[in-house]
């Protein structure tokens, strides 16, 4: 998995071997994270899919469910630099991306020098992102989408792999600023961190109340992650499977002809094209980790919820009737028959 060999080394290894290595690495990463994090298999898988699809993830859950621990563990197993930014109402954009400060040389000359902010890391934890003002939230926009920040007319590239994990609390809405739609759309997946069941809770208590705290080992490097990202993009997808993904996205729009009645009634805005990208790339990663060389309808369906749930905006009637975007996606998956 060394990228130094370039194209010649890629050609030397067959597709079967590369995908096998991908699958093994993925499983090792998953197992290593699960040494520290109890349960949350779906969340861990979703976070890794996002990482390998070159996307960013928004984790939503009440405090104390291990969101921050998950991100820290991920940085440990990947052997990548890690920054945690605690979003507060008084946090300013410069606090995130950095600023130019005056420096004085040995000869006494003064000049501006860019002081990098915490965003200059491989893995960023934007904790409680909805507590900062929209202005500050927007500071993440360019970084997430372009992989760089511009300060005083100078573009500063962020080192790859760059991976943002944001968390938000769904219950304490007072004093928060809900993420703007443009910001939400930049997250590849939105994962819901559910409360653990009894056995998981018991395991959490067992692990965290001993003198020995489990530690995750380094499994892979940033370069290997980039190589895995390259494999993901090579996975072929049949035209009719791709059409199915696109129809799912189109059906989220209330003005679309193929939208079901519930969407027409309860949805205000549907998914952007980023939703379709998310479905296809997520489906590719799912195919690879399930030992396949092609994307299936099932892969698309499995990533439909995390890909689309934050991209569907309900109208007032939908919210008043108690609908949420997940139930709309369920309707879409039932209505759109694969292969038709």
């Amino acid at each position, binding site marked *: 998995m060394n990228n130094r060999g370039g194209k010649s080394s890629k050609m030397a290894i067959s597709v079967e071997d590369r995908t096998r290595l991908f699958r093994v690495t993925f499983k090792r990463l998953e197992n290593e994270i699960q040494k520290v994090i109890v349960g949350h298999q779906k969340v861990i898988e979703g976070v890794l899919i996002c990482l390998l699809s070159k996307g960013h993830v928004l984790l939503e859950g009440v405090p104390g469910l291990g969101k921050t621990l998950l991100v820290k563990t991920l940085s440990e197993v990947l052997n990548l630099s890690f920054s945690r930014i605690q979003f507060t109402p008084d946090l300013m954009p410069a606090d995130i991306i950095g600023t130019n400060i005056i420096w004085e040389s040995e000869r006494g000359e003064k000049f501006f020098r860019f002081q990098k902010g915490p965003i200059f890391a491989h893995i960023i934890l934007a904790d409680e992102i909805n507590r900062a003002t929209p202005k500050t939230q927007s500071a993440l926009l360019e970084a997430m989408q372009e992989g760089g920040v511009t300060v005083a007319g100078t573009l500063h590239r962020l080192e790859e792999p760059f991976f943002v994990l944001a968390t938000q609390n769904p219950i304490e809405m007072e004093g928060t600023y809900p993420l703007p739609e443009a910001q939400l759309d930049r997250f590849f997946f939105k994962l819901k961190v559910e409360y653990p069941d009894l056995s998981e809770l018991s395991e959490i208590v067992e692990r965290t109340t001993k003198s020995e705290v489990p530690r995750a080992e380094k499994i892979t490097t940033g370069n290997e992650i980039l190589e895995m990202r390259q494999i993901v993009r*090579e*996975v072929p*997808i049949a035209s*009719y*499977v791709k059409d199915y993904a696109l129809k799912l996205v189109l059906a989220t729009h209330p003005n679309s002809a193929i939208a079901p009645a519930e969407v027409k009634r309860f949805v205000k805005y549907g998914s952007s094209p980023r939703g379709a990208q998310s479905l296809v790339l997520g489906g590719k990663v799912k195919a690879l980790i399930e030992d396949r*060389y*092609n*994307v*299936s309808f099932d892969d698309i369906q499995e990533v439909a919820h995390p890909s689309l749930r934050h991209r569907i905006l309900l109208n007032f009637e939908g919210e008043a009737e108690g609908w949420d975007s997940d139930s709309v996606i369920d309707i879409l998956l039932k209505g759109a028959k694969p*292969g038709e």
Partner: protein
Amino acid sequence: MEDVMVLARKVRKVSWKIRFSRAIESALRFLMGGLIVDALFLIAVKIIGPPSFQFQLFFLLIVGAITGGILYGLFRPLPPIKAARLLDQKLNLRERVGTALELAPSKEREWPIAVTRDALACLQDYPLRKIKFRCWPREIKILPFLVAFLFIIYLLPPLSDWDFLSASRTGILAGEGERLEKMTYSLQEKVPKQEWDQSRELLSQLENLSQQMQREGIGLEEIIDRLSALSQTAQKRQQELEGLNIFSEGGRGGESGTPPLEGDAEENFYRLKLDKLKQLLTAVEGGRWGADLESEIEELSRDLPPGDDSRKSLEEVSQALSEGKGEQAEEELRQAMEKIKKSHSSSQEKQFLNELQREIDRSQQQLRERKGSAEFSPGEELTSPSQAIPQEKELDYPPTEESEGGTSAGTEPSAHPEGLPTERLPSSGEEIRVPGEFPLEAETSLKIYIPGGEKEAKAGTPLREVYPRYRKVAEETLIKERIPLGFREYVKEYFQSLEPR
């Protein structure tokens, strides 16, 4: 490339299985469509009556639907990619085969080969010969209901039989209650039902005979015999129902220029003619026409009046027989019989009308002669009640005094030989006299006095006294009768609004 060819061959083999399953599936779908059309057809038959070809059309639709479905399923285009997708779906191969076939023409070789190998490896685990594709359409669940529905429609009586049911339902809804319901059902059980049954029996016999004729190719003679028997039964039935017999009333000859025959003589004449014609018809039906038959017909036609239509028909019969056209003669004989019957009945009617007119003229003549002695002519109208008040004193009442008795029983002359007049009912209204009909030979007229009703009468009982009784009856009716729930309140409110205050 070799792997792709192997995969394509496998898919081609499977595609025939898919075609056969689709043939069965579409045949079943088309059959259900045909059954729906059949149901509509049966409903139409129940409403407007059956055509002669109903069963042929029924089965033609079903057979046509199945055949069309099979052909459609077999020859419907099935591209290899589509077959591959169905195979993926059937074996749960997660779109491996479909993707491999779709990627086969691409220039990039590494991933398509990997996908094709993966698909072939998966297919090796499945014996393709044993694969069975779904033949049953999703809508097959409704087939039993469809057949049951069709059978129910078939068993339902024609719409014309539903008049009683609908009438009774309307009656019940209108609030007339059980009385109307019972009356309707009793009507349904009695006369109309019997008549319908008998008529249906005759019709069904005729239909069976027709079907038997088509099925077995029965000879014409046998069919004619059966038809004659049925026709006699039907005629008898008609006579029973209508209470008519053309020979029972006895005509008196017509005004067609022939000398009128008197009563029984004419009856016997036509009876004989008809009997003779029937015999001749039987002879012609049996194919026994010849010179003797011709002479008999000529003889019969000579007995008829010269201008009579039936005589002309008989002459045509005779001519047809002489030319050897037995069937034509048979048909014309039948027409001749009909004409004789018609002319006989029409001459009877005309005779009766003429006599009636003559009687009317004679009566009017007598009346004109007697004008002045009678108060009113039959043609005059009453213009006012006072005009009808009698001027005679013979029916003056009430009697003012009783006459004294005679010396012995029956010796005392009485002022009222026809008996005492009826005691007059107390009434303040005006009297109206209605003149009786004048008998043609009568000398005196009969007059009837009808006491008039109260004018501007007022109800003698106050509403306060009758209201509780009426209300009680209304409440009982509300409980007993089947009144729709929505209307109960209306009825209640109506009676409450009548309550005296």
